[in-house]
């Protein structure tokens, strides 16, 4: 079964089979879809809960485990993500995506040597998927290596069934490491693919504001329209509205 074949990003286009009484079957895949929707809505906490419910439905559902780890990383709980990755590795020994997730958790927790080691390990396995290459790109971006771009290309090339999400993740990654102009290309594509994703609009707006584009306000307002309690978007919008001097100070590194 491909990982994202049954994903629904638009609430109106339900493709899940209804149960006998007309409701969707609440299995692991259903909760996984809900989790991805929550992630795109920038509600990482709820996404984590949905991944847990997916695992309650099927504890051998790999995407549930991987999703929990990625959400813990998004929530900044890196040691917990490491613990949970170790637990997942008991069920899925030497799984490259789990090793890649550990690499990212270590990297964001400023344990660079460990991150490199986990990334090396993950990439040496068979069936290396796009997320492994994304993690590799992140490790290399941190060490300012130009090879990171090749890893991103590799990730995109391998992402046949989840190319939309991978493009979005690539954009987020580039944004995270300050490569805003490159990130904008991916994120513009992402908002086209996920027009109801507050996170995608926020990421795009953030990059645009850092580049001094006036469209940033529109993007961030759209993000807040989709998710009114999105604090990061509120901050970014405040920054985007600061005007020329605010942006100038930012460009000079004084902010």
């Amino acid at each position, binding site marked *: *079964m491909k990982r994202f074949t049954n994903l629904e990003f638009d609430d109106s286009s339900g493709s899940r089979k209804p149960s006998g009484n007309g409701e969707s079957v609440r299995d692991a895949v259903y909760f996984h879809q809900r989790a991805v929707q929550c992630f795109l809505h920038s509600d990482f906490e709820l996404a*984590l809960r949905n991944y*847990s419910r997916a*695992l*309650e439905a*099927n*504890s*051998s*559902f*790999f995407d*549930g485990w991987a999703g*929990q*780890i990625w959400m*813990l990383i998004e*929530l*900044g*709980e*890196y*040691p*917990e*993500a490491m*613990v*949970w990755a170790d637990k997942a590795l*008991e*069920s*899925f*020994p*030497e*799984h490259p995506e789990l090793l890649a997730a550990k690499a990212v958790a270590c990297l964001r*927790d*400023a*344990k*660079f*040597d460990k991150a*490199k080691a986990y990334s090396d390990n993950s990439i040496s396995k068979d069936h290396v998927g796009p997320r492994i290459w994304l993690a590799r790109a992140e490790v*290399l971006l941190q*060490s*300012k*290596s*130009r*090879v990171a771009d090749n890893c991103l290309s590799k990730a995109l090339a391998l992402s046949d069934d989840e190319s939309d999400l991978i493009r979005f993740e690539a954009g987020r990654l580039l944004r995270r490491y*300050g490569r805003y102009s490159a990130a904008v290309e991916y994120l513009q594509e992402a908002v086209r693919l996920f027009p109801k994703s507050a996170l995608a609009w926020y990421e795009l707006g953030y990059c645009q504001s850092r580049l001094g584009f006036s469209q940033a306000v529109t993007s961030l307002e759209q993000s807040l329209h989709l998710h009114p309690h999105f604090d990061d978007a509120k901050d970014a919008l405040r920054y985007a509205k600061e005007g020329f001097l605010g942006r100038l100070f930012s460009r*000079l*590194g*004084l902010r």
Partner: protein
Amino acid sequence: MRCQRCEFENMPGLDTCMRCGSVLAAAAEPIDVHPPRMSGWKKPIRGLFRQLRKLKPASKRTAGNLHEHHFPEWIDGASRVAFFGAFLSLIPGLAHAVQRRFHTIRWWVVAWLIMLLTGLFLFGSPLGLIVLGLAIGIHVWIAVHSALLAEYHQFNYRMAGYLIILFIYFVLYQALGRVVFFNLRGGYSVINVPYAQVHQGDFLLGLVSRTDPEEITRGCFVLVRLENVANHGLGRRTNTAYAQVIGLTGDTVAIENDRFVVNDQLLDAEQYPLPTWLRRQKFSTVVPQGSYFISAQYRGTGYTESQAIEVCVVGQEQIVAKAFLRWMPLRRRGFIQVIE
């Protein structure tokens, strides 16, 4: 039994997949699927530790990558030498430019410029010295982190590297200061002249080019090498300090009623105050050719007339600069009023 992960059809009764080793669904025991969570209070503490970890010197891994991918061929060989780090850090941002870390250049350049300019602005005060020290620290930091000293992993080697580069930059800053501001000399005042708003301990700036005999006038402040002071044990200042000129070549300087008398003319005590150590002294002397009679405050009392004259009369060669600016304290910064 089909494996959920690799879809391999396993024999019934197996706990793990034959092909990939995954736990098979039927064999899996009920397991906790709720991950551990971080307490809210731990987040800032962990964040702090994370920031501290980021401050750790770049590891060999990073250095290896940088050498491997970014350093031009001609630099790569030279970069093996630890001191090359110091060379790259001469201009903050240069090392980053070489390593193509362009977006971090501005941080270093701005930080260094702020430190340098603030240090120069406050030069002469303890705070100014601290800030200048921080500017030097930025050089040292870049030197150590420009992937050159990363070859050394042991703490003692790294510490030695820090100290050596710190010493190099300390000497370099002193030398460069002398070169760039070749005509300027700073020093602390050892005389209290309220009329000119110059107090003991003020940091004055003087021009080296204005030490010719025609430039030195009565009442001006000159930076003097106080060699005789050390010889007589009158003060701790054995180096240079700013003192007031009282008598010029050929003048007759005397002390009467706790005031200076020059060429039989009583000088104003406001403009030419008598230092404490010269009070109750009564002497008269003629300033020899190529010398000046200077007034400065020293410690102690009770020395002979000849000792006092020897301390106060300085040769032209001992004059280093003539003061024109009160630099410190900040609230009294301004040009020194010429005493007629």
